C-alpha cells in the first residue's frame, strides 16, 4: 500500500494544512534514500525542493491559492531540464550539464505547486528498453532486484512503484513510458503526439517523442496530464488541449467497443495471454463489446521504427560536438579532431550504434530505399489504425511480450533488445495515445495491459482506463 494515497487527496491535505509541503518533500527524500540500492535516481534536487516547499507552505498560510498540485513532490526523468540539479540524460557527454532553463512541462507543474525532488535514471538519451544503457548504472526492478525495470523511463517507473514520490515524468518515443510501467506495475500514459510540449526535453526522435506521467492510478495520470497539456509557443508541434480537459472520467464501459489486436496475440507467451484474456472477460462482463481487429502491417512497425528513430537520433545528436556544451576533448589539434574525440569519448555504444544506422539510412543512395520507404509504410500503418478506429472505440493488447527480463540477459544482442518494443512502437509512429495499466502478475512479476485510442481522444482513453483499472483491482 502506498504511503501517498491519490494526488488529489494529498493536495487537499496540503491546502487544508493537515500536512505541509515540507513534510511531503522530506518524506519523499527519505524514501529515495532508503531505496538507494535500486539505483532509480541520478540526483536529488533537495535544496531547491525544500525551498519551494517552504514557499508553498507560506502561500497557503497566507491564504493564497497554491495551485492544483500544491506541495506534491514528483520525480523527472533526467532528460527533462529542471532546476536544482544537472541534466545529464544519463550520458557521459552531458555529465555536469548545468541546467540553464526549465522544460515547459516542469514549468507548468511548478506553476500549479508541484515540486520536483529528483532526477531519475534512464537509458542514456532514452535509447533502450531496460535502463541498462545508462552511462552511469543500471536500475533494478522493484519486484525482483535481479531484473530490469524496463526502459527507457526505468528510473521513473521504479521510483513510483518504490513510493519515492506520488508521480514521475517520463518520455515515450517507442514505448519508453508504457514498457517500464508494465514491467514495474505502474500506470504509464503516452499522450497524443504534440499534446505536451517537448521544449526543454532532450530530443531523441522528434517525430515520435512524447512526454507523459507514470503514476499509481489512472486518475493521477489524468490530473498530471491536464496540468501539462496544450499549446506552447516554444514547441511548434504542440496541439490545442481538448476543450473538456482530461480529468472528467465519469463515463462508463457500457456499449464501448474494444478491438483486440489480433497481431499482438499471435504467438504470444501463454502466461501473458492468460492475464490479458482474464482482463478481457471482465471488460465484457462490465458491458463492453469486445471484437477482434486485424491490422496486417503491424508486424512491420518495429522495422519502420528502427529506421526512422536512428535517422532522427543521428540528426538530434549531431549537436553534441564538443563546442556548444557537454564533454569537450582536450589536447586536439584542429576542429575536426575536437568533434571526433569529443563524440567518440562522450557517447556510449548504443548512441554510436544508432547514430551510424541513422547516417546509413539517410545517406545518398540509401535514402529512398530506407528512410522514405519507412515513412511510406508509416502511412500504411496510419491508414490501418484509422480503419480499425472506424469500427471500434479503443484497441487492446498486452504492453509487452513478456514480463521483466534478467539484468544482462539481452545486452549483447541489440536486435533482441529492440524486439521488447514490438507492441509499443506502432502507437508512436501513428501518433495516437496509449496507456499501460497493471493487469496482473506472473510469478510475482507485473503484466501491463495496453489500451489505445484515436488521436486527441486522450480524455476518453483515460476514462476507459480508469474503469478498466477498477475492474482489475
Amino acid at each position, binding site marked *: 500500500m502506498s504511503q501517498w494515497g491519490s494526488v488529489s487527496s494529498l493536495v487537499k491535505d496540503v491546502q487544508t494544512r493537515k500536512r505541509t509541503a515540507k513534510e511531503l518533500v522530506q518524506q519523499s527524500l527519505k524514501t529515495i534514500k532508503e531505496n538507494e540500492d535500486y539505483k532509480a535516481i541520478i540526483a536529488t534536487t533537495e535544496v531547491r525542493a525544500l525551498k519551494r516547499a517552504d514557499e508553498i507552505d507560506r502561500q497557503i498560510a497566507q491564504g493564497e491559492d497554491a495551485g492544483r498540485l500544491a506541495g506534491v513532490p514528483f520525480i523527472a526523468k533526467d532528460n527533462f531540464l529542471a532546476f536544482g540539479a544537472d541534466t545529464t540524460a544519463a550520458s557521459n557527454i552531458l555529465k555536469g550539464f*548545468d541546467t540553464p532553463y526549465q522544460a515547459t512541462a516542469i514549468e507548468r507543474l511548478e506553476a500549479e505547486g508541484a515540486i520536483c525532488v529528483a532526477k531519475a535514471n534512464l537509458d542514456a538519451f532514452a535509447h533502450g528498453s531496460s535502463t541498462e544503457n545508462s552511462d552511469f548504472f543500471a536500475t533494478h526492478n522493484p519486484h525482483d532486484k535481479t531484473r530490469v525495470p524496463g526502459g527507457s523511463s526505468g528510473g521513473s517507473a521504479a521510483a513510483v512503484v518504490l513510493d519515492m514520490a506520488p508521480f514521475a515524468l517520463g518520455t515515450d518515443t517507442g514505448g519508453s513510458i508504457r514498457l517500464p510501467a508494465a514491467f514495474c506495475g505502474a500506470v504509464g500514459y503516452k499522450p497524443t503526439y504534440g499534446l505536451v510540449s517537448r521544449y526543454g526535453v532532450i530530443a531523441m526522435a522528434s*517525430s515520435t517523442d512524447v512526454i507523459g506521467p507514470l503514476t499509481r492510478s489512472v486518475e493521477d495520470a489524468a490530473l498530471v496530464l491536464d496540468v501539462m497539456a496544450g499549446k506552447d509557443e516554444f514547441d511548434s*508541434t504542440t496541439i490545442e488541449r481538448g476543450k473538456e480537459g482530461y480529468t472528467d472520467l465519469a463515463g462508463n464501459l457500457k456499449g464501448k467497443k474494444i478491438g483486440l489486436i489480433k497481431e499482438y496475440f499471435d504467438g504470444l507467451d501463454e502466461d501473458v495471454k492468460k492475464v490479458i484474456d482474464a482482463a478481457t472477460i471482465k471488460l465484457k462482463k462490465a458491458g463492453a463489446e469486445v471484437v477482434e481487429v486485424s491490422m496486417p502491417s503491424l508486424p512491420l512497425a518495429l522495422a519502420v521504427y528502427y529506421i526512422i528513430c536512428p535517422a532522427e537520433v543521428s540528426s538530434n545528436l549531431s549537436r553534441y560536438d564538443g563546442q556548444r556544451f557537454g564533454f569537450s576533448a582536450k589536447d586536439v589539434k584542429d576542429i575536426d579532431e575536437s568533434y571526433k574525440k569529443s563524440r567518440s569519448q562522450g557517447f556510449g555504444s548504443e548512441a554510436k550504434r544508432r547514430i551510424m544506422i541513422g547516417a*546509413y539510412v539517410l545517406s545518398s543512395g540509401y535514402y529512398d530505399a530506407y528512410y522514405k520507404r519507412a515513412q511510406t*509504410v508509416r502511412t500504411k500503418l496510419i491508414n490501418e489504425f484509422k480503419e480499425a478506429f472506424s469500427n471500434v472505440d479503443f484497441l487492446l493488447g498486452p504492453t509487452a511480450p513478456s514480463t521483466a527480463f534478467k539484468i544482462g540477459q539481452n545486452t549483447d544482442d541489440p536486435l533482441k533488445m529492440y524486439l521488447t518494443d514490438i507492441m509499443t512502437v506502432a502507437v508512436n509512429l501513428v501518433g495516437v495515445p496509449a496507456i499501460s495499466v497493471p493487469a496482473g502478475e506472473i510469478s510475482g512479476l507485473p503484466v501491463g495491459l495496453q489500451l489505445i485510442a484515436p488521436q486527441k481522444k486522450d480524455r476518453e482513453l483515460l476514462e476507459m482506463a480508469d474503469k478498466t483499472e477498477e475492474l482489475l483491482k
Partner: protein
Amino acid sequence: MGKLTREDVLKLARLAKLELTDGEVEKFRGEISEILAYVEQLQKVEVDDLEPTYQVTGLKNVTREDEVKDYKTTPKDLLKNVPAAQDNQIKVKRVLA
C-alpha cells in the same frame, strides 16, 4: 544486402564524426548488419501510390512573428555550459585551414 564491410563501417563513422577502435568496428559491423537485415523486410511491402508521412497530426508550416521578445533565460545562462566562450560567443578552433 549482404554484411557491411569494414570499410562501410569506417565510412559511416567518418560521416558521423566518430572514431572507432578496431574492436568497435568489428562489433558494430556485425550488429548494424543484423539490424539492417531485419529492416530489409520493408523492401517487399506493397505501398502502391502511398505518400510518406513526416508529421502525424497534420500540422503544416507553423510560423510566428519574427520579433524580439524578452525571456527569463539570459545569454549568460545559455553560455554557462559552453567549453570556451568569449564576448558572449562560442569560441572554436579555426575552421578554415
